[in-house]
């Protein structure tokens, strides 16, 4: 033992020569050499590990796999092409060989592709995205079947948005400069060392990015966003909040002037305390009135205030002898259900008519139909040109067929002493509540105008989560999206003092509205990226006689006219004069029929006078035209018509359109399209379906001018000659 240790010491002594240290009379013992050796070798190991770690980056691994997959796919194609080669006939041989050569080129390219970080720099959007470093096959449609990150981008989104021009993070968010999974913020990491707010958007929120550039209400291929924008518009959020795109929206509720003459007290009390009781169906169909967090005293005060506004002298007694059967016929003929619900079916613009008598009196109904715009100056309902008898008939029908039970004042409110009911103090209290709770956001009331009472929610998508009021709630991840959703679901949950009422949204509608609200990120998007149809000339108030007619018949409740109006009809009327023939239009105004049988919404019969129809038809024909469509009708040869018919059959148009007896219901029937549309419009529309209506479902077949002319010729020849169109003798 001792000999071994002596030997060891000798050895150390020898080695110490090279370390310039002698063992004798030194404070350094052998342990120092051990330290030196241990630390030194550990250092060497660590440096090697460091280099390996630096070399073996995550993205290199992904690129290697992606390349293997790509080469494999290409080689399979080459193999099949080569095996087919002998059996190919002479005609297509050259083409085939070209394809083979192309595939080999792709293979060579893939083999030679350097392993490096890829990046897309988009200066105008101030973004640099390295996502394609790992997602190498994102533009490759052949890679769609693979898993992420080798997968190709689903859908045609990259065809519409050139990846070099848009990058990735403008839509997906996340940290574009990063090149590994964690730091690219594929998942939002909260509470860890990097609390990123801009993590990659989940599929529930991704559509909010579309709304950064797409400012139209209807965004193609973004159903959630479109629905959300619809919800925001219908719910009238902009009455109380300032919201981007909705700054100039009108109040969604009816005016509450003369409410005392309109409704009875029992109904109003029930309505204020529980709007849902009136129609418990969820969703925004009807009624849109949200439920406010009001106490019984507050409701009574509000009721006193609202009922105090009345003018009973303005109500007129209906003429005697109304015939409910004639009324029923008129009710159907006028297409009232286009806007009104009857027992849950119908349009959403007007209120439910079933049980109407429990709310309003017969006298009021009659007076309202007679003089609609006196009682509701900003209603969407047109002023119908009924005779007094017809009005009587329809009121009789409504009161008989759609009668509702007589409501009683709810129990809680019964015992209110009469002296309190209409005292000035109570009315004043009611007025204060009316203003405090932002009733003015939806309802006009003469003499009360206070603007928006709730905070602006411009740029909600870029809000800092920390700055939002989260209240004392556990179990919610603190993302702005969750906050918005929770606020919509139950405003009091996060903020006890919130005055915001509970809206009758379904959860789907809440989620959609959240997406739409988050789409406003205040980002500085250059104008060339913005997609918006509303950059045409806007005329909020149309002048002249035409303007008066549009106002009287409230065309803009359903149609967009010069950039303003509702979207019940998906067809803006700005170019209508170039699209339809005058004769057809005249007939259509006299007796509207449905153009698309599957739609519930139909043009209402307004019972216009002949002179009004003349004015409208002339205005349409001379003013509301598109310069790009020629005024003169084309003339066609017989063989063009024949060729057009064969094309019509070849492209299977009949699968969507009705022609003659059979056909599909997606597009409008074409049986008599020659009577309806001008040749110029048919031609332009076939050539370029989405030029005039970006949301059109009509496929773009890329017809040549010749084919398009032939099809136009055929369609223009589809007329119903026998039908006797009533042409009124104007002037």
């Amino acid at each position, binding site marked *: 033992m001792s000999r071994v240790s002596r030997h060891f010491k000798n050895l150390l002594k020898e080695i110490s020569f090279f370390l310039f240290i002698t063992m004798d009379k030194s404070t350094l013992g052998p342990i120092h050499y051990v330290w030196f050796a241990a630390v030194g070798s550990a250092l060497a190991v660590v440096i090697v590990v460091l280099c390996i770690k630096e070399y073996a980056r995550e993205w290199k691994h992904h690129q290697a796999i992606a390349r293997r997959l790509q080469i494999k796919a290409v080689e399979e194609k080459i193999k099949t092409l080569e095996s087919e080669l002998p059996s190919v006939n002479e005609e297509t041989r050259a083409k085939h060989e070209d394809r083979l050569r192309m595939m080999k080129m792709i293979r060579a390219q893939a083999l030679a592709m350097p392993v490096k970080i890829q990046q897309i720099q988009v200066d105008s959007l101030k973004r640099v995205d390295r996502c394609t470093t790992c997602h190498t096959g994102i533009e490759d449609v052949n890679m769609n079947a693979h898993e992420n990150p080798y997968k190709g981008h689903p859908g045609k989104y990259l065809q519409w948005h050139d990846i070099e021009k848009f990058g990735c993070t403008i839509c997906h968010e996340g940290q574009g400069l*990063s090149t590994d999974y964690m730091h690219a913020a594929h998942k939002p990491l909260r509470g860890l060392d990097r609390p990123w707010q801009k993590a990659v958007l989940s599929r529930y929120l991704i559509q909010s990015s579309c709304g950064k550039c797409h400012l139209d209400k209807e965004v193609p291929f973004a159903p959630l966003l479109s629905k959300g924008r619809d919800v925001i518009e219908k719910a009238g959020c902009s009455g109380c909040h300032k919201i981007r795109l909705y700054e100039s929206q009108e109040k969604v509720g009816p005016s509450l002037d003369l409410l005392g003459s309109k409704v009875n007290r029992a109904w109003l009390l029930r309505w204020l305390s529980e709007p849902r009781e009136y129609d418990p169906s969820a969703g925004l169909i009807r009624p849109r009135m949200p439920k406010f967090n009001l106490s019984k005293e507050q409701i009574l005060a509000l009721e006193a205030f609202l009922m105090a506004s009345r003018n009973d002298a303005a109500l007129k007694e209906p003429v005697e002898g109304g015939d409910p059967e004639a009324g029923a016929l008129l009710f159907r003929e006028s297409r009232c259900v286009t806007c009104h619900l009857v027992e849950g079916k119908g349009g959403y613009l007007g209120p439910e008519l079933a049980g109407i008598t429990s709310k309003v009196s017969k006298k009021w109904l009659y007076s309202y139909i007679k003089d609609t715009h006196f009682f509701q100056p900003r209603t969407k309902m047109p002023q119908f040109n009924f005779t007094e008898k017809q009005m009587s008939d329809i009121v009789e029908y409504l009161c008989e067929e759609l009668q509702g039970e007589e409501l009683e004042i709810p129990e809680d409110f019964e015992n209110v002493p009469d002296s309190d009911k209409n005292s000035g103090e109570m009315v004043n209290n009611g007025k204060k509540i009316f203003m405090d709770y932002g009733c003015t956001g939806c309802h006009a009331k003469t003499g009360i105008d206070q603007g928006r009472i709730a905070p602006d929610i411009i740029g909600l998508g870029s809000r800092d989560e920390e700055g939002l009021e989260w209240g004392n709630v556990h179990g919610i991840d603190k993302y702005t999206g969750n906050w918005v959703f929770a606020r919509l679901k139950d405003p009091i949950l996060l903020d006890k003092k919130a005055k915001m009422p509970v809206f009758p949204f379904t959860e789907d509608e809440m989620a959609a509205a959240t997406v739409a609200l988050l789409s406003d990120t205040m980002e500085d998007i250059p104008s060339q990226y913005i997609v918006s149809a509303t950059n045409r000339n806007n005329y909020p108030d149309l002048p002249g006689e035409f303007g008066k007619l549009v106002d009287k018949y409230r065309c803009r409740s359903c149609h967009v006219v010069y950039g303003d109006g509702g979207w019940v009809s998906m067809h803006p009327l700005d170019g209508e004069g170039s699209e339809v023939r005058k004769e057809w239009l005249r007939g259509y105004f006299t007796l509207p029929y449905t153009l698309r049988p599957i739609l519930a919404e139909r043009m209402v019969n307004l019972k216009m006078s002949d002179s009004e129809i003349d004015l409208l038809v002339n205005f349409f024909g001379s003013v509301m035209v598109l310069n790009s469509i020629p005024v003169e009708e084309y003339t066609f040869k017989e063989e063009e018509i024949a060729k057009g018919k064969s094309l019509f059959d070849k492209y299977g148009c009949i699968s969507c359109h009705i022609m003659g007896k059979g056909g599909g219901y997606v597009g409008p029937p074409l049986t008599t399209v020659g009577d309806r549309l001008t040749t110029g419009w048919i031609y332009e529309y076939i050539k370029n379906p989405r030029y005039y209506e970006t949301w059109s479902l009509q496929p773009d077949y890329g017809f040549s001018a010749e084919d398009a002319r032939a099809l136009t010729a055929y369609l223009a020849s589809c007329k119903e000659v026998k039908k006797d169109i009533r042409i009124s003798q104007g002037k």
Partner: protein
Amino acid sequence: MIKRLKRFAEWLVRTQIWSSIFRQGWPDTERNRILTTINTLVFHLHPIKVKSHGIKVKYTFCLGGISFFLFIVETITGVLLMFYYRPTVEYAYQDMKDLEFAVTFGLFLRNMHRWAAHGMVLTVIIHMCRVFYTGSYKPPREYNWCVGVSLLVLTLLLSFTGYLLPWDQLAYWAVTVGTNMAKATPVLGAEGPFHVLSEMTDICFYLRGSVDISENTLLRFYVLHCIALPLAAVGLMGIHFWRVRKDGGISGPL
């Protein structure tokens, strides 16, 4: 084997190349060792002979040496980082990301710079404690203690100015909090007691180069961090080391 190596070493020190670089022979004799200390620039910071108790790790814990070494690490990594960094609002943060994800060893360099900086602040403070607890500030070393305190302040300032450079939220708000204190300076600050200067002329404004933290601040901190403060620190360090030797070497009972 070992004998052969020894012979090789003896031959090596006789070659012209060796003797032109190292003026002395193989340092195994006392004479050669003394010459090594005298002739080598780095080693000649040391005296030829040191007191035995001063060599003991238990006594100094190498704290001053480690502080100095960390300063060198900071200098080397810092210079390398400067190749990739542009002190502008537009690029600063992007360059951080580039360093992290696109530059080879970029993230490692940044980590090393950051952790060595924290380590340096810590070792300098502990070094001060060590010097205090061993009474090494007592005459004749009063002046060197003061130089040391100045070096501590410089270290803190170096670290603080470097804090802003990544231009991320952490940097921005930490420096906001830090420089806000300057506003409260009596007389010279805009919000301090007896203030006479406006927000546009007070001491905080000159610190930041603007009312809020902006590109001016970034440039100011960058220049301070990379040039002014390191130069001052090097100068003071020179004095510090010089005085350690001139005041009688590492402290011990006189």
